[in-house]
């Protein structure tokens, strides 16, 4: 009697299992959290050291770090003398001067990633999905650098900063993505707009122009020793 009922239950369970048409997903392995990269970490260290009144530590962190190595590599494309003048500002404990020069460096990195994103959108050898995905990833990388320099940029020219920040949102939207934390499940589940590469390219070009303008202006301001007019001395 019992054996029969158990057999029935077993049969029912097997039928139920066989009827599961949608493949269940596999197990959870935890969420991946993007971290600072070596450059942003080094920028922060240099800034904190000079703000804490430790010029020797700031110079050491700069000379031994990846920021210096990247500046040397990109020497010809950065404003002339940026590396030496940044070191000088660190030695003199000129906090606004150092911060503005680091912001120039971050704006340069942002512009490079955005230029790269724009180039990807013009590559005919990639499928539209692939080039949009690559462009989105490069814009995300650009955002990581811009985010760190945003304070100094908005302090120098708030309108420029607003243009760039809105540009990030617009570019992501035109590429079918969104500027939002992926953990925010409700919003992430919202349907994105259809991509428009033409508009995305125009937005990226605009951001590149704004950043180039900022670099020129900021280099001039820093060299004139005027960074202290709008950046705190701490």
């Amino acid at each position, binding site marked *: 009697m*019992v*054996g029969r*009922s*158990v057999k029935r*239950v*077993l049969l029912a*369970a*097997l039928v139920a*299992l066989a009827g*599961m048409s949608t*493949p*269940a*997903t*596999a*197990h*959870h*392995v*935890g*969420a*991946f959290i*993007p971290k600072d*990269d070596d*450059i942003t*970490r080094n920028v*922060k*260290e240099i800034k*904190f*050291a000079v*703000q*804490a009144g*430790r010029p020797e*530590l700031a110079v050491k*962190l700069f000379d031994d770090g990846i920021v210096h190595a990247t500046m040397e590599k990109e020497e010809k494309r950065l404003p002339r003398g940026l590396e030496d003048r940044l070191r000088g500002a660190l030695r003199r404990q000129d906090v606004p001067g150092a911060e503005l020069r680091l912001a120039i460096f971050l704006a340069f990195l942002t512009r490079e*990633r955005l230029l*790269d994103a724009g180039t*990807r959108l013009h590559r005919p050898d990639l499928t539209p999905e*692939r080039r949009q*995905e*690559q462009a989105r*990833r*490069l814009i*995300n*990388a650009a955002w*990581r650098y811009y985010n760190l320099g945003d304070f100094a940029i908005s302090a120098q020219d708030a309108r420029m900063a607003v243009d760039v920040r809105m540009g990030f949102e617009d570019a992501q939207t035109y590429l079918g993505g969104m500027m*939002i*934390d992926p*953990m*925010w*499940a*409700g919003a992430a*589940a919202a349907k994105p707009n259809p991509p428009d590469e033409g508009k995305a390219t125009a937005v990226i070009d605009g951001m590149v122009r704004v950043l180039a303008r900022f670099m020129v202006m900021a280099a001039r301001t820093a060299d004139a020793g005027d960074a202290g007019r709008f950046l705190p001395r701490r």
Partner: protein
Amino acid sequence: MLLLALGATGGALMSALQPQIRQYATERVFAARAVHSLSGSRAYDADVVAEIVFTVEAGLSFFHTHGEGMGLILLFASTLVASLAWPPKLRAGLHWLLGFSALFPVGYLAYSALVLLCGRDRGIALAERVLLIPSGSSAILALAGLAGVAGLLLVNGRVRRGRARPLPIPAATRVAPPEHCWRRPPRIVVLTAALLIALAELGGAAMGRFKPEIDAFTSARVRERPELHGLVGSLDVDAEILEEIRVKADGGLRLFHLHGEGVGLMIFAGALVVATCVSASWLRRALYAGLTVGGFLFPFGYVMWSALTPFHGVEAARRIAALSVLVPSGALFLLALWVLLFPLGRALLTRRRATVEEMPAGPVPEAMLSMRRPVMVLVAAALVLLVLAEAAGGVMTQAKVDLDRWRRAQVEAWPIVHGLSGVRPIDGPVIDTVLSRADFALRLFHLHGEGVALVMVAGGIIASNFISSRLVAGVVQTMLAVGGFLYPFGYLAWSLMMPVLGLRAAREVAEVFVWAPFGGAVVAAMSLTVLVLAGELLLRGDAWSGDP
């Protein structure tokens, strides 16, 4: 068995319904803005909501892991209470305490629900006060009592051997009649369980030892397939993608280690229950098959996932592993666990178990044979380890703030060791890393303490009942007792030494002096058990017999 089935099903549902769970939790949080102190500003609320949803998911994950862990602890501990505890009032008291501790995993379900209903901090506090602390304390108390009983019996046995006139033996330690004992599951099922545990331990050891090599291999294979993984040729962007893939591949191996040990123990525990409580021979064989085939294959789905990730991408690898291994074998295993509850429920309702007379009178005698317990030293060591590991789990959560304060003070007292600069914002991330690693190491002590204690008990039962040679059985149990007891303390030592010696030096000390010798002893003991079981199985050729 109900806890095991619920815990395993909880894990499966959590994986299958992860997006829906996140969506539901997010909606509930937004529906109760005041409870969760949302400001209405997207920039602020995004982090708050993400943290609450993460806490809800963590509660469900703890239900899965603690459901399975506590199910095994209850099964083995209640067996030891029934075998060792005396007088009857003490035995009944320990059984009640253990029974109450079954609410501990359920407390984590309540934890998730209360976080949504009452807000994060209030919900956690409520779940801890009402369910987690009382039921967890009950488990610790029961295990401590049982460890005390085992210790007394151990001392009593020693004293008795040294005297001319023996001390009186408590009734409970005399040989019980066969119908009151666990019956022997088939040798092939026991071999499968032992093999899975040994492979999982080897996997865990290899994963820790060869992590740089595994990471390098994964990175190299990913770089060979830039299109597949969406590499863009920009160093910073690609570094992020590579790290994500390495984390996922490493996570797959980690899950193999965890599930291999857990499921290996569940196969053995389930087989004991099947052998003892299921009378219909066709059902017994079907359950053995479901537990063994489903359970053994399931953890290899994670190895497959991990191995395929560099070649097919994260999502495709997960889909292939899920469809080909994880879902079919996991479903078979779950089915066996749930079906096993029917004869158990029936026996509970009618307050009886499958009697000897109901067992088949044919040529399969294993169901008639009762099991011996492992040597008392092994039992006592495993119980002490279980108590310490559970207590560490409690300390880890209840005294986290004080522990972190102590660790921070230690790190700051050794600035050169940790390369501190004296600038707080620069040193902050360095100190935070040490603190989080030390907390992680303590968590590993809790996890490994409980896991290895269960392996010690199960391995001891297997060695004393399924290995014919008394010498080999003795060697295996000694290695398990010494290695198993000391191995998890490597994680405790690592956690305590880290703030003083630094991350790398503390790890190296723990590896050389504790993990390698004592962890090696456990791996060797389980590997030797597998080899002997396999050898005896081949020589006897009777896979279904449990008779040594």
